[in-house]
Each structure stands twice: as C-alpha cells, then as structure tokens.
C-alpha cells in the first residue's frame, strides 16, 4: 500500500488481511443429540477444500468496511448530477421505518393473515403509483427498471399473440434511448429498429410513420427523453403507433420531471415502468437494490405477472369491530364492517408468469411508500417543479460556456457538450468529468445519449440548493478556463481523489476478476 498526499489511504482486501484462526462471528453449537456430520451427510458429495473466506475479527472487519466507505462519493457527501439517474436526497426516515422487525422478519410464505401490514402497504403504494402515472393496474415484482422493461415487453408479446399479432417481430426505439430498451427487446425475442431523432432532438413523425408497419410490436420511448426534452408530438406518436396495431412502452426513468404535471396514461401509454430508486427517493445502494414497478392500461392487465396484491371488500369476509386495528386506512364503518383485507391474487390465467421469486424488493417498496406519505400529492408536484427549475437554471447559466445542442426549455435534465473545449483545447468530456471530481462533486453522465458528441448529461434533481447549483456552475466555468489556460491540469485530472485514473485497457485485456493469493 502506498502512502500518499491524497485524502484517503487505499485499503487492502479482506483476503489480503486474513490470518488463520481469526473469526468475527460465533454461532451456536447444535445442542441436540446428533450423529457425526459425515454420517448425517452419507451419500452426499462433500467439499474437499475449505473456501478461502477471510479470517478476521469483528473489529478488523468493521474498520475495513468503514475505511472502504471513505473511498466513495455519495449523495450524502455532495452533489451527484448524474443524468438519467435522479440522484436525489434519500430521506433517513425511509430507512428507519423499513428496519422494523415486523417487516424484516416476515417470511414470504407466512399466511396472508400474518402479512396484512405489508400487503396493505403494497396495495396502497400501487394505488399511489397509479395516480401518478394515470394507469390501471401495476405489478410490484420487478427488481429494477430494466426488469420492468422485460416484463412489459413480454406482456406486449403475449397481447399480440392473443390478438392476431404473432407475426409482429420488431420493437422501435429512438436513437436517444437507454441501452436497456434495446437489450430488453432483444432478450424478449424481438428485432430492434432505431429511429433517427429530428434536428430538435425529438421523434420525427415522418420517420416514425415510415418505420411503423404490421411487423411492429411496440414503440419504446422515454418522455421527457434522454436529452431532457418533452416529446411535443407525443399524442400523435401514440396515435400513429396504435393505428399501426402496435403498443407504446413508457420508460419511466425520467418520471421525476412530470409528477402532477402530466401522466403517461393520458399520453396514450400502454405500459409504464417506474424506478422507485430514482423518482421515489429510495437509495441506489451503489447499484441496487432498486425496484421497477410496472403499470399497465386495462387491456394489458390480464397479462400482469401473478400474484397481484388484492384488496378484498370487507363485506365479503366480515370481521368484528374489535378486530379493527388503529391505522387501518378505512377504519370500521357504521355497520360494524371493518378493515379491508389484503391478499395475493394468483388466479390470473392469462398472466405471463412470475419474473422473480416471491413478490418484489419489498424493503425498497416500504421506503418509497414512506416517501410518498411524506411528500403527498402537493409535495411530489413541487418536487417535479423544482427539479425542472433546477435543470433550466443550470442550463441557462452554463449556455455561454458550454455548447448546449438543444438550448431551449428542458425538463428535469439537459445535455451539454464539451465539443467546443475539445476542438479548441483538446479537453474532452471525460476530462471535464474527471476534473469535476476534484471539487467534491460527482460527474454528470458522459457520452450519453449517443447522439450528442462529448455529451455531459446533467440532472441536478430538486434536492440541490441554489448555493449548490451556483457552486456547480462556478466549477464548470473554472474548468473551461483551465482547459484554455492549462489543459494538462484537466486532462491529468483527477488530482485529489483516492486514486487517479485506472488503466481500463489493462483491466479488460487481462481480466483479474477475483483475488488470488499470489497477487495484490
């Protein structure tokens, strides 16, 4: 390990630190009369070599991971304007309530009676998501946005199969689409056609028309799109697509722009996924867990993965007033009928089938539910207003310094370009991003969307203060000045982070994907 003048020291791997005989956790002995293990496992093949797990005490492990944590940037440390990722503040109460033993100890195969609290939460969350999206029914199963996409496209496939569209074999996506959209279509067995965006960064109606055919199964789009622009012709887009017999999939990665302002259901969307780890503030966890609930219009409802959470009419199975517990959404009514009961509905013969074990990333759902309660309808609307205002503020203030290919009103994010800097000084988008890291701010998404050269995709979110936004502008202006005056400072960045740029070529050429006792 090298000592250095950077902020943090690097940390050996647990496997490097391991010393035989140490351990960090003890477990109870059996305490029952039992034959030797070899006897109990007679007839089974046994492990011949113990796994090389680290041997460390608890204090060593706690220090190790605490030190590792110090090598990360995070939302709680500073601005994280990563475009398309909605790195908003993650409220602490969300995490706290999700740790309640009543949630964490609940086994997925307990009876519905045992799980009424969690089922009610899931049902209420579904209702709230339907209000936000203007859709008809939702599944909470998908673990992430891309998982939701797969569910949605498989449902569209099932719909076409049942409606004379089995020969439809193509999914259309704009060239500004997230990579997941194309990968999803392929995974679901479809061919992919990419639509060239118009000069205005939007879907061109004539291009769309000429690509729609009796072979089209679906159009997948993001609105606002990955340039942060609202598809102004969205109603015509969905009308044309439906006229061609195809369905429209809405990638909800950018839903944070439009809560309370517009609803995908009103736009004519057939399927909508949401990213609870983006729009609804559950933390990203360094890449997950997220949750990607998927909402659909009425004609696709039969195809949703089973089980769905159901709410049963209290009159169907009356309960005594005494059974009503405080906190029940409806409370006992005058006739003495009581709380609704919640259940899992498996009786869905047209369902495409489940896409994961059990019911969803429930711990993530609990956090999103707490967030929606905290914000309320007015708060969510205000969040979208502030997110859009923050993005437009940054766009306006940066437009003199950086090229902004579509410099007009944006939604919650916009895409700037370092093309000018690259041409004039040799400093590329990657260099600007790395130099930003030196200022304690995370870099924007770079080189995406693919249709903007030297792209810097910036999404400040609503939880960035005016002072934070101004500081970010100052950083980007200063980097532009550096690019002209001392470009080597920018191309050599970062200078103050725990490591300097890693050798990506070396990593890919001779992949070392795990610890080896003879390395490190």
């Amino acid at each position: 390990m090298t000592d250095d003048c950077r902020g943090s020291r690097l940390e050996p791997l647990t496997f490097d630190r391991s010393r035989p005989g140490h351990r960090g956790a003890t477990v109870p002995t059996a305490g029952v009369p039992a034959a030797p293990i070899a006897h109990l496992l007679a007839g089974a093949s046994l492990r011949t070599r113990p796994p090389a797990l680290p041997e460390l005490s608890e204090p060593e492990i706690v220090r190790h991971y605490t030190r590792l944590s110090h090598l990360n940037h995070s939302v709680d440390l500073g601005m994280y304007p990563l475009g398309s990722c909605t790195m908003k503040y993650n409220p602490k109460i969300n995490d706290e309530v999700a740790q309640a033993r009543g949630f964490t100890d609940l086994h997925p195969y307990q009876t519905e009676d045992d799980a009424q609290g969690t089922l009610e939460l899931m049902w209420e969350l579904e209702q709230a998501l339907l209000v936000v999206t203007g859709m008809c029914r939702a599944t909470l199963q998908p673990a992430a946005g891309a998982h939701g996409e797969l569910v949605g496209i498989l449902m569209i496939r099932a719909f076409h199969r049942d409606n004379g569209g089995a020969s439809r074999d193509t999914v259309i996506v704009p060239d500004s689409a997230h990579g997941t959209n194309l990968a999803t279509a392929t995974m679901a067995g479809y061919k992919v056609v990419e639509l060239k965006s118009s000069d205005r960064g939007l879907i061109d109606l004539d291009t769309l028309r000429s690509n729609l055919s009796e072979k089209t199964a679906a159009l997948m789009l993001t609105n606002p799109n990955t340039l942060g622009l609202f598809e102004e012709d969205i109603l015509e887009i969905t009308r044309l697509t439906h006229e061609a017999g195809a369905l429209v999939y809405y990638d909800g990665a950018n839903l944070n722009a439009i809560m309370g302002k517009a609803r995908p259901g009103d736009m004519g969307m057939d399927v909508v996924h949401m990213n609870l780890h983006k729009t609804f503030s559950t933390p990203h966890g360094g890449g997950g867990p997220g949750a990607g609930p998927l909402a659909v219009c009425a004609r696709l409802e039969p195809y949703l993965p089973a089980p769905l959470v159901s709410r049963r009419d209290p009159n169907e199975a009356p309960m005594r007033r005494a059974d009503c517990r405080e906190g029940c959404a409806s409370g006992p009514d005058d006739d003495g009928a009581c709380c609704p009961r919640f259940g899992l509905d498996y009786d869905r013969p047209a369902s495409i089938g489940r896409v994961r074990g059990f019911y969803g990333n429930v711990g993530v759902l609990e956090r999103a539910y707490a967030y929606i309660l905290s914000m309320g309808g007015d708060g969510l609307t205000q969040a979208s207003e502030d997110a859009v205002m923050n993005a437009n503020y940054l766009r306006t203030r940066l437009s003199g310094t950086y090229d902004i290919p579509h410099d007009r009103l944006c939604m919650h994010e916009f895409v700037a370009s370092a093309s000018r800097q690259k041409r004039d000084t040799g400093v590329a988008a990657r260099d600007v991003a790395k130099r930003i890291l030196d200022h304690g701010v995370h870099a924007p998404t770079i080189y995406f969307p693919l249709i903007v050269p030297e792209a810097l995709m910036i999404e400040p979110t609503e939880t960035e203060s005016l002072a934070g936004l101004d500081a970010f502008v100052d950083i980007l202006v200063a980097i532009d000045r550096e690019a002209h005056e001392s470009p080597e400072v920018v191309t050599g960045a970062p200078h103050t982070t725990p490591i300097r740029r890693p050798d990506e070529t070396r990593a890919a050429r001779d992949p070392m994907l795990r610890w080896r006792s003879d390395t490190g």
Partner: protein
Amino acid sequence: MGYLVHTDADRALMLRRIGAASVDDLFTPIPRELRTTALDLPPGSPESEVAARVTSLAERNRTWGSRSFLGAGCYHIYVPAAVRSLTGRSEFATAYTPYQPEVSQGTLQHIFEFQTTISELTELPVANASMYDGASALAEGAFLAARHTSRDGILVSAGVHPEAREVVRTYASGPGLPVADLALDPSSGRTLVPDAARLEGAAAVLVQQPNFFGIIEDLEPLAEAAHAAGALLVVSQNLLAAGLLAPPGQVGADVAVGDVQPFGNPPNYGGPFAGFMACADSYVRQLPGRLVGETLDADGRRCFTLTMQAREQHIRRAKATSNICSNQALCALAATIHLALLGPTGLRELGATCIARAHYLHQRLTELPGVSSAHDGPFFNEFAIRLPVDAALFAESLRELGVDPGVPLGRFDPAWTPLLLVAVTEINSPRDLDAYVDAAADALAHPKEAVHDR
C-alpha cells in the same frame, strides 16, 4: 416536506434568471391538453406521522421469531449487528453504480470481494457483481447456456423451486426457448439422470442443490450426462450448505447461480436479496451483468474498475448479453460482510448446527404416528414430511400452538397437499424444536376438520 430545499425567494430569483414568468412557463413544452395541475393524493405528512403510520403497518404483521420453520428459498438466519451497521453507511447506501472509479473505490472493492467470495463458495473461477435474485439468475443462466451452445432446449429438474421454474418459463417465452421438466426419483427425491435422447438438442440442464425438497442432489452423473450431450449444467446453489457440501465447480457444473439471502439479508417478505452467478472461464464473455476487475491507476497503485463492459447494455445495446443494469449491490455487500464475519470456520459451524438440528427434528417428527419422510435421499437443513392430514390444516393447528411449522406444499401443487416443507436454522433452539414436536403430537391427536378462511 423538508426534502425540498428552495425558499420562495430562491424560486423567484431562479425563474428570473431563467427568463420565465412563472413555474408554469417551464412546462409549456408539454401539450396543453395533457397538462394536469395536481395529484389526487393526500397532502404530505410530518415525519412523526409518517413514522407512526408505517410502523403501525409493521406491527400489524405477525412474525414468529425462533418458532418459525419456514424456508423454501428464504431462511431465518441471524444477521450480525455489524452487517446492518456497515451496510447502513450512507457512503455505500447513497452511491450510484460505480461509473467513476476514482470516487467509487469503496463500492468497487466490496464488489470485487463479493466476486471472490462467490467464486470461493461455488469453486468456479469467475463471479459477477450480482443479479436480481436466485430465480432470475437461474433464468439468465439458461440464457447464457443457450447463447454459448447455440441451442435452445432447457431442461429443468422438478427439484428446482417451483417459482424459479416459473421464472425460467417466463423468461424463455420471449425468445421461445422450449422448456421441459426432468422428473425426480420418487423415493430418493433426487433428479433422475436423463438419457441421451432426452438431452438431444439441450442447451442446459438446470438443477438445484440442495433441491426444493431439501434433498442433496448427486450432481456428478448429471454433469457427465449433460456434457456428453453438449449441454451445460447450471446449478442453483444454496450457499448455506456451501461450507460442507461439494461446491458446483468441484462436481462438474459449468454455471452456478443462487441467492445470497441466508447471509446478511433477512426474509423481509421475499426481498430485496441478491442473486449471484459464477461460471467457468470459458463462459466469461457470455456473463450477464457487471464485473469488477483489478487494475492499476496512473500512479501504479492497485485499484478496481468496472470491466469487460462490451457485454453490457449501455455499450452493446441490442447485442448485450442481458438487459440488466441496476443489480442488488447493497444486498451483496451484506452477504459479503456476513460471510467475512463467519469465515471458513463459522460457515462450516453454521452449516453443522443447521444440519444437526434439522436431522434431530426430522427424527422426532417422523416418529409421530402417521408422519413419514417424503423422501429417503440425504438432506441438509430442510426436509419434506408427509402428514396424515392436509398440511395446511396441520400448519394452522400448530400456529394456534405458537409454532409456524413449515411451508405447506399444496400451495404449489395440489398433489403435494399432505407435504410440509420444514426448514431448521441456528435460530431454532433445541427448546424450539421440542416445542414443535410437542405441538405436532398434540395437533395430530386432535386434527382440524374445517378449512378456515386464509
């Protein structure tokens, strides 16, 4: 709404600088006929009320502590306090995917440690950064095999968890891969080795170890048969048994998948957990999901970075190995820390305690009149018993006596109505086991007749 950061004065100033008269002006790109003005949801609540409401829902659930014997892919294993303390650190929890390695070494290194941990437990050389869960990882394993072999047939053992089998079928419905079941030997509960005719054209044989009924499969003949037919053996592995049982890589598996849930991730009504996938070197370029690799930085220091991204959706787009983007990194970290705390000795001891207690309970239960073992193959910490009554009714009786005795299997298949799947872990004390036996004896002596409303 303390998460909103602007004052009205801030907003006015920002709108002025943007050149907008009002916030509504910012939304003019949305066609007028689409614009809404409000959400039909209740107003926001102060934190104290949110806490009270959500906590009341948690309290409405009933849980059974050490008197729960439910498993079937999700196990009650004690989570050491250090796990939650460390995974709760916001430097881990509030970071995104480590796209900027210079400020993400914490995440990248713990993923590298996870990959190493999974590689050790599966005894396969390469593991990815995590999948959504065990069931979806199994489906992705089948897809990997189909890509590698350029074949499409998927053979799934009837000993694979019914939900995982359903997930495989759902995934396979897209590209239209035919999926067929492999039967179990009814007495041992082990997967019958398919003959060459059955394996013709198969891309993959999918099995679970120990299987859904808790039976330890004999993997070597399955691997030999699959390989002789040019198919891959994909094993869904319960890591709880990994300290004692032969790991998939030792017995010829090409791909191992599974769920890390027993380590660091409480049941939580089924999620979030983390799936894993490991494979032999020859399939690395077909792996779905993220991979972290070791390299050097510009100063020559060891560091970590996402690598081999040409397999992934954000680079390869329509030609990616999978559409997976977000995975389950924080759940994988919980497992990594729990397994580091246990170390090789603790993992072995945990397995030994589970197995000894499970065999003790199995012995005592099958001594009760009318109760028999569903299979005679070897088992680890989980087993199915055949009851003289509907297992769901039996379970209901035992719950009235304070024990949640296992998963009645009739929920998966009506033919399994008399079967109860019982899981035992280190949280079920010897006293809990005896209480279970006493309650079972009582319930069998006074059987329930009517089916109550569930």
